[in-house]
């Protein structure tokens, strides 16, 4: 009997959230499994090295004067936010970074996001976090910032009531409390009033170099203070939720405004949708090589040899559902095989099996019926062009990232593992349609 096993009662499985994937798990959650090794060797190396940490999350050499802008991507539901929570926790240490996390989905108007909004939010969160631990700031910098906003923003705003709202209540605030409140008010103004939104944004954009200078001076002051107080060698801001942006918004912010985003002098990790990884020409000038969180490797490139990933996935399943609720281990192995090492896909299979089960058990029949259901979802999604591209991938193992492939990756039809190794989602591979296209090719017929 393992204390970490999930519920043994069928209905409790659902009640206790074992079939949920909405929330990013926090370290300490029973359902949390360390998948670092299962995702491939030294998987976090490329993320940690520029930040001066080794793969064991120990700080080695942190360059206080260099700033890194890291794009963090992965398939939807492969565990990005869960891993980010863990990374934030491990990097946040006196001999490492003072880490500040923000989530744009929670705090911004998700329908209309501009890079300025993200910067405001970052500023707000930094200030709030510092204020919460009662840190003070050089009065001169504070006055500079206050002056800048008073003159350049508040006084420029035509809408009187908005200016008053922003100004109201700020005079009594001091230190980081003031900065936090001010940015919070700006963020709120941007979020709620669509007419003011553009105005405030334009004011900042038109004088970005001024904003940047004052903001960077403040960042510099903060970093220095963090070091003095032994709270961190530098500052790291993690922006989550940006991977949810539409392709259009995402390109607008991360490509068109890459230069503005990378002019702020501290370290940033942004989550981005996986397609951005393939826009290397546009991104490599500004950002580190994008970090892709790979799926769990459950099989070593078709050698049939089980890897550490298999056991990790099994652990993940049992932490959500007690082993006794499966009819036998073959069923568990089948689920893992069909998930392709993709966490959300795995939970989808479990969910569908739960919905289809006659015996209140996760048995072979319910899993098969569940997968049958998921196949229908993929078949709904895929066009003949997509199938043809899949056949090409299967036959030629090519690594091209054309538009069709980008979309297939975007929708988890093709899964990506460590070192950009690609495989067709096992569920898609099982569909009659895919088989049909495979056979056509084999028979030498044209489509």
């Amino acid at each position, binding site marked *: 009997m393992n204390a970490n096993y999930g519920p043994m009662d069928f*209905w409790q499985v*659902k*009640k206790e*959230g074992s079939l*949920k*994937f*909405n*929330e990013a798990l926090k370290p300490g959650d029973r359902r949390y499994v360390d998948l670092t090794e299962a995702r491939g060797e030294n998987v976090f190396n490329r993320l940690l090295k520029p930040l001066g940490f080794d793969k064991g999350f120990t700080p080695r050499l942190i360059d206080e004067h260099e700033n890194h802008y890291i794009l963090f991507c992965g398939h*939807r*539901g492969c565990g990005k936010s869960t891993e980010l929570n863990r990374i934030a926790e491990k990097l946040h240490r006196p001999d490492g970074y003072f880490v500040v996390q923000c989530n744009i*989905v*929670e705090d911004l*108007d*998700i*329908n209309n996001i501009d890079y300025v909004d993200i910067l405001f939010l970052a500023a707000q969160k930094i200030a709030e976090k510092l204020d919460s631990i009662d840190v003070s700031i050089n009065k001169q910098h504070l006055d500079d910032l206050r002056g800048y906003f008073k003159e350049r923003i508040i006084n420029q705003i035509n809408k009187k009531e908005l200016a008053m709202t922003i100004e109201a209540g700020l005079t009594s605030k001091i230190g980081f409390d003031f900065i936090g409140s001010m940015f919070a008010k700006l963020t709120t103004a941007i979020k709620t009033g669509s007419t003011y939104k553009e105005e405030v944004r334009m004011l900042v954009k038109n004088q970005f170099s001024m904003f940047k200078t004052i903001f960077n001076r403040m960042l510099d002051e903060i970093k220095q203070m963090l070091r003095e107080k032994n709270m961190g060698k530098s500052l790291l801001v993690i922006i989550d*939720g940006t991977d*949810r*942006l*539409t392709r259009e918004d995402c390109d607008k912010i991360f490509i068109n405004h890459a230069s503005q985003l990378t002019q702020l002098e501290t370290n940033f990790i942004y989550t981005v949708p996986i397609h951005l990884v393939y826009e290397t020409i546009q991104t490599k000038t500004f950002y580190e090589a994008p970090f892709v969180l790979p799926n769990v490797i459950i099989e070593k490139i078709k050698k049939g040899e089980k890897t550490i990933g298999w056991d990790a996935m099994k652990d993940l399943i049992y932490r959500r559902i007690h082993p006794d609720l499966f009819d036998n281990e073959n069923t568990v192995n089948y689920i893992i095989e069909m998930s392709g090492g993709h966490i*959300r896909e795995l939970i989808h299979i479990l*969910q*569908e099996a*739960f*919905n*289809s*089960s006659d015996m209140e058990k996760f048995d072979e029949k319910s899993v098969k*019926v569940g997968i*049958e*259901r998921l196949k*229908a*979802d993929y078949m*709904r*999604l895929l066009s003949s062009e997509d199938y043809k591209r899949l056949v090409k991938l299967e036959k030629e193992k090519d690594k091209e990232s054309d538009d069709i492939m980008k979309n297939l990756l*975007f*929708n*988890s039809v093709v899964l990506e593992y460590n070192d950009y190794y690609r495989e067709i989602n096992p569920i898609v591979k099982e569909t009659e349609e895919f088989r049909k296209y495979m056979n056509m090719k084999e028979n030498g017929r044209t489509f």
Partner: protein
Amino acid sequence: MDVHSNPHQVKRLLRVLDALNGFELVIFGFGSLSIALEIQAVIKNNCRVKKIEVIDFDVSGLEHIGEFEAMLREKADKGKEYRVFNILGMQRHVKIGQASLFLNQLNLLRDRLANDFPYAFFFWLPESLVHRFALDAPDLWAWRNTVLVFEDEEKSMEPESIPFQRLEKEHYEEFNLKEKQSQINYLHDAVKTLMNKSRTLKRDKKLAGFYSDLGRLYHSLGNFSTSLENYQKTLGIQGTLGDQTGIASTYNDVGMLYQKFGKPEEALQYYKKSLEISQALGNKASVATAYRYMGRTYLSLTNFNYREALAIFEQSLKIFREIGDRLNESSIIGDISQLYYLNGDYATAKKYLEEDLSMWQGTGEQNVQGQILSNLGTIAMGERKFEEAKQYFQEALKIKKESNNLYSQAPTIHQLGNVAFEERNWEDAKLHYREALKIFQEFNDRNSQANTYGQLGIVALAETNYASSLAYFVMALEIFSEYNAENYIKIIIYNLSRLLSQPGWDAAGAIEALETGEETKKVLRLILEEIKRRATDEH
């Protein structure tokens, strides 16, 4: 594979509803508006039974996702119970060959709602547009709980053709034995035909209806286990269809079956289950009906609580009056009157019936009037006013004959036999009883047959025609035993002991000469021995 058939999808839908917990996202595809409405009704009924509020939310007029979120949050602020949001009118936002802005925005809303909006979202789209979710709201799609697609059944199902003759009558009581058997044959053939068709909601519903009819027919033929088996099949299908109304009605049927077979406690359990569902669904007529059946069952309990039974009948009466169901109202008044009658309050019992009768006079509802008159006769019997009773019964019979309803005449004819019996007019009594018996036999009403056999036995006993009295009692005893009708069995055994203790005839020889099973003879011998033992003790 059956996995994608509509009934299978409904089964999965019910599992989803059973397991709702926190933020849920289900995408519904429908083949036609009619199937969408049908499935939405299934959702609403099942949620009502589970006390989950279902809120329809039409987004066709909304432009900005912010409006949507604000409206959702406003609704969610009121009360804390779990709720399901049916998001309708989505198709307005999906244009062919163009990415849907609304879907795109929903994509991002999901993240916000998932954190602090622990309710279920059911998005409805025509089946042909479901893939647009995947394309325009890939994030929302990726986090879906499941997708449920319901095909249009109007197109897929060929017109129903079951090549057999079916008898259409409102109540199975109106079928005579031959008709019942022919109806059963029809239903078995129809079930076989349907079983060979592919599963659709329509087919399953029909099948449930056929099983339910079979249950009722076997019930009326006195075949308890086959009837129950068919009701269980009905319940099984109704369960997979999520047909709560049907389930409530079948529970009533099962209750009546147990009631008829002398298991009032079990019957009450089923009526209560039926009542709970009907109350949750707000189905007043079904609530009143369940109350009424419960009340009747209370009357058959050995030590029924008079007040409790009355309260239940009054509940039922109130509802039937509310919804203006005059026929059922009258029927309940009959039950209440019977309750007063059983409690010895003949005056009140009579008052209820007389008032009710005056309401029906001149309406042409002859069946109802005949029934009320017959009940008035029964009360007069209780008051031992035999001449008055006879008049009521004769009047009732006249009306019933006019309305050409043969089966309903039998109980009144039996009652006329009772009047003649009380007047010690054995010849008339026998004539009436035999006439009633013929009808009961024709319609295979075995309980009533047994009752009449019992009366004929008592007449024969009074006439000192012992051998034939014994034969009648035995026939009554055997039928009552089939139905576990304890109270009636006790009455027959009492009369049997009276018969067997008559001096001057060879009771033991008569028992051995009976054309009946060894079991019955054994019982009779035991009674005889007991009588002899007591007689010796008294000496």
